[in-house]
């Protein structure tokens, strides 16, 4: 089967998330972008499926800083084709991204679309479900354990409490991957650098979609002070206080 993996680049959550001056958006220029964690799982699952069953893996990303690196990294990991989708605002929301990917996918042969189940900036919903609905094909979110059997796809969807359900579907389908069967592989940096010199990315230009998104009024941090009392002192002071708190709340055994 041919698998397409549209990936999202998102701000690195480990870093301080700077806001712009009027508090209406993130200060995108001050942020480092990287592949969304769940998209990395989707890519890994796609590569695993290809290694087990043959077929191809095509990775797509919307053009923005770090897109080239993410796409070359995907090639270094074993993807067959990498496509940079150009022509739209790089800081666009997920709905617009879904429209752009839909347009780009018109030029890509695929049976199965794997996306990350969600991304940290999915204010307008998850890419996979939006994309499937625009393409009018079925979708399942929170998916693990995908397998191909002849012409059909079998998969597990996760619910609360570790409950799973098994589904079967004939392509085409969009699966929002929760976790790959094994942790995403690493691409050697030297290999990525080499590909950046030697290989090239395909580009597909799309027209900027005309959808409207809910208006953003403001972006702000959760109110400080409502949360934890921070423990002061040396490591030993902190440990002593934690021990005291835990033993007091645990009650007698």
């Amino acid at each position, binding site marked *: 089967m041919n698998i397409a993996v549209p990936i999202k680049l998102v701000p690195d*959550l480990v870093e301080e998330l700077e806001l712009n001056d009027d508090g209406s958006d993130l200060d995108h220029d001050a942020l480092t972008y990287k592949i969304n964690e769940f998209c990395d799982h989707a890519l890994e699952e796609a590569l695993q499926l290809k290694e087990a069953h043959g077929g191809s893996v095509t990775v797509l990303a919307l053009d923005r800083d770090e897109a080239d690196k993410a796409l070359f990294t995907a090639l270094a990991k074993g993807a067959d084709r990498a496509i940079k989708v150009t022509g739209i605002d790089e800081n666009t929301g997920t709905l617009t991204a879904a429209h752009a990917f839909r347009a780009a996918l018109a030029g890509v042969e695929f049976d199965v679309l794997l996306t990350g189940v969600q991304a940290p900036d999915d204010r307008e*919903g998850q890419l996979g479900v939006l994309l499937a609905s625009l393409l009018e094909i079925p979708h399942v979110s929170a998916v693990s354990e995908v397998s191909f059997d002849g012409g059909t796809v079998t998969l597990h969807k996760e619910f609360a409490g570790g409950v799973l359900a098994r589904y079967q579907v004939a392509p085409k389908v969009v699966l929002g991957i929760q976790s790959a069967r094994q942790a995403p592989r690493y691409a050697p940096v030297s290999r990525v650098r080499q590909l950046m010199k030697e290989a090239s990315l395909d580009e597909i230009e799309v027209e900027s979609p005309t959808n409207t998104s809910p208006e953003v009024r*403001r972006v702000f*941090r*959760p109110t400080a002070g409502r949360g934890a009392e921070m423990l002061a002192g040396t490591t030993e002071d902190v440990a002593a206080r934690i*021990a005291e708190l835990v*033993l007091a709340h645990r*009650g007698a055994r």
Partner: protein
Amino acid sequence: MSASNVLVVAEHLDGVLAEVTFELLGLGRALASAAGGKLEVALLGSGMDQAASHLGGADRVLSVDHASLRGFHPEACVAALVQVLTEHPARTVLTSTTSMGMDLAAALAVRLQRPLIAYAQDARLEGDLLVATSQLYGGKLLVESAVEGDCVLSVLAGANPAAAGRVDGSPEVVAVAAPAALASCRLQWLEQIKPPAGDVDITQETVLVCVGRGIESEDNLPMAQELATALGGAVCSSRPIVDNKWLPKTRQVGKSGLRVAPKVYLALGVSGAPEHIEGMKDAGLIVAVNTDATAPIFEHAHYGTTEDLFDVVPALLERLR
């Protein structure tokens, strides 16, 4: 006045209503009252009659009963909900950010050509505008959005009190005929699989030591186990630890794991993503150890420290010896 109605999508597994359904009903009631509309709840399933008797929080139950709605079936549910909304228009559709809600909200928004606001922790009306605050970026930022007119709202599980929507007794139940599309779904639901029982039932423990990705390596788990033993509790974890297969699924706390409410919850190297918070926010005492002072876990913890867990835990063990 149908246009000012609010429709809650009930969630259930095997006919047992999920807690989040009551959370949505509570929020839905506030929105419906503010708009002067009715609060309706869509109940989709196969042989679901019993469940309606717990939906007294709504004015009406709109029920679709069809064999293809057995288990949870994304494609069939979306088709059924489009039918429900065609016959019984509602201005605001409330779903949740659970595994089920995730497969409904964005699909409904596209099918009905309505805007969607996802990961909402709250919502209110300001005149004609619906204003909602979404928890994004792993809980590190809040984004306030406003929409006019029809919309779909996907509400964070665990963000609103369930008690507000939990009213026994069945309201009027209106059957909505299953649309023809249900007979020709492309997706097939095969079976449900229950998780195997674990060695330890973390929902029954008094003290839980939770390890997150900050624990760095499987080799550091014995240290956490030692601490749990010293405190008379058990080790549990965030999802990535289970994904790495360092601990069994039965130890996972959160949206796709278990909901726990121990007397003490000590979180070591856990960032506090909404999907994790959902599973432990009701713990009696929450203490968080995280080197990132902006980690969302500190919003929910009672006490916190930004000391390195690899310093704090040995010091704690020393103290408890």
